[in-house]
């Protein structure tokens, strides 16, 4: 068993080395495949991040009537927090709202003076609500409208925001669909190309395979070295595609930051480098093993 395994590995290495150009060509194809995969992974991460950051900016605010008591408002806050859709509720009292307003407009003479003229605080207390999912704002809105203490509420910003929220929901849905579709399509093409390359490499060895059968080699003894070759392809291609990725991300990162300020794909790459590298290698090896084993089957029937 051990002798057979060591021979299989030895022959795998031998074949790999002696068919140098063919091996190099196969590896290059595989690198391209893996880069396509990396691209898809990053595309998905980017769109997800972009949508997340947009989503984070969406919220609805409930403004309360001047005469509404703080207790009543806090009660509503409490009941909102009990809803499973709600992620966070922030209470902004009238005083606090005024403070922020003043701070924001302290450069503006007219506003500051106008405020000084007033005795009462013209601003309304509000609750700022964030939901887990943008789709849930509709539900929260309905909940508030059917609430027993509805009379406390002056207005809900959902009405103004609903079109934007709806549109964003649609965009996210489409982006997800496009992302999934592209991932499946490109993965399929890439796998097919790699498979075909390995198939051609094995096709060029079909006579040798026949001879091995004739000399009394078992199928697993013939298949073994090709599988080992597939593994070597996978490891080398995995490492190289990762190395190629590093400068691409390094120089691309600032441009992406312009579009999505929260996104730093360079640091994403650094913090996930071990994961990405091992995924690449695992994927490459799996691709190599699968392609070799499937491609060789046909020639083992004599």
């Amino acid at each position, binding site marked *: 068993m051990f*002798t057979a395994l060591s021979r299989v590995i030895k022959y795998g290495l031998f*074949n790999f080395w002696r068919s140098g150009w063919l091996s190099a060509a196969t590896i290059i194809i595989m690198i391209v495949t893996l880069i396509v995969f990396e691209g898809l992974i990053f595309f998905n991460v980017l769109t997800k991040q972009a949508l997340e950051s947009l989503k984070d900016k969406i919220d609805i605010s409930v403004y309360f009537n001047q005469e509404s008591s703080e207790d009543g408002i806090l009660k509503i806050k409490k009941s909102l927090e009990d809803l499973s859709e709600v992620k966070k509720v922030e209470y902004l009292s009238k005083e606090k709202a005024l403070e922020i307003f003043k701070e924001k407009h302290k450069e503006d003479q007219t506003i500051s003076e106008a405020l000084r003229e007033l005795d009462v605080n013209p601003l309304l207390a509000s609750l700022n609500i964030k939901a887990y999912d943008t789709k849930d704002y509709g539900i929260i809105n309905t909940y508030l409208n059917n609430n027993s203490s509805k009379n406390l509420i002056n207005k809900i910003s959902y009405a103004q925001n609903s079109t934007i929220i709806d549109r964003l929901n649609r965009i996210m849905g489409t982006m997800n669909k496009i992302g999934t579709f592209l991932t499946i399509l490109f993965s399929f093409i890439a796998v097919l190309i790699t498979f075909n390359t390995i198939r051609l490499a094995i096709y060029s060895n079909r*006579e040798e395979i*026949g*001879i091995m059968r004739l*000399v*009394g080699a*078992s*199928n697993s*003894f013939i298949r073994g070295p090709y599988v080992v070759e597939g593994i070597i392809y996978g490891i080398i291609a995995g490492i190289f595609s990762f190395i190629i990725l590093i400068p691409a991300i390094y120089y691309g990162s600032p441009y992406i930051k312009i579009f999505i300020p929260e996104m730093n794909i360079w640091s994403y790459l650094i913090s996930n480098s071990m994961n990405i590298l091992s995924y690449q290698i695992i994927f490459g090896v799996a691709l190599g093993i699968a392609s070799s084993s499937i491609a060789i089957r046909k020639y083992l029937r004599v």
Partner: protein
Amino acid sequence: MITFQNVSKVYKMNEHSSVALDDASFNIEAKEFVSLVGKSGAGKSTIIKLIIGEEKPTKGKVIVSSHDINKLKMNQLPHLRRHIGVIFQDFRLLNNKTAFENVAFALEAAGRPQVEIEEYVPQALEMVGLKDKVSHFPSELSGGEKQRVAIARAMINHPDVLIADEPTGNLDPFNSAEIIKLLLKINELGTVVILATHDKNIVDNLNKRVISFEDGKIIRDEQKGKYILT
């Protein structure tokens, strides 16, 4: 050793069917040297394919060193083939392996330990007269030398039977004679040799058993036969 009982082989292609072997029966005993003669397509190659289990008979029974070819499963085939050495007109060496590695491959495939390989392979190559070309690749060897490597490989597992399918077809008369000498030597050491050939001179000089084929039928089977085709 080898028994054919009323064996027929019919190849079907779409609606056409061609009879490659028609009701052939014969026995080959241990230590025999048998020549199979006949025109191309007479059935010699079919006999060989049946013996090495590459094909199964359409009718009848083929038994090779106690293996029934009909009942042989795909995964038992390698075991059968380790008992049968085969050489071909086109040598069929592994081109990316040296002479040594080509011969060693048959032992490795049989799962034999490395010590045996180091010991037997040089011996086998010496027997066929290629002691000084051990690390040559097939592309660096002449036709006669390639055939000798093939013989060394075929003999390395000490097979019961050595099948030679037109072994001299690509060789000049001198090399042909050398190869036949080797086959005779192998036969003297106790291995059954089955030689399929077109070469009248070789067969007539051997003075051994000859089975003649025509259109898939055995037309003659003589103990000290000559190459006679009507």
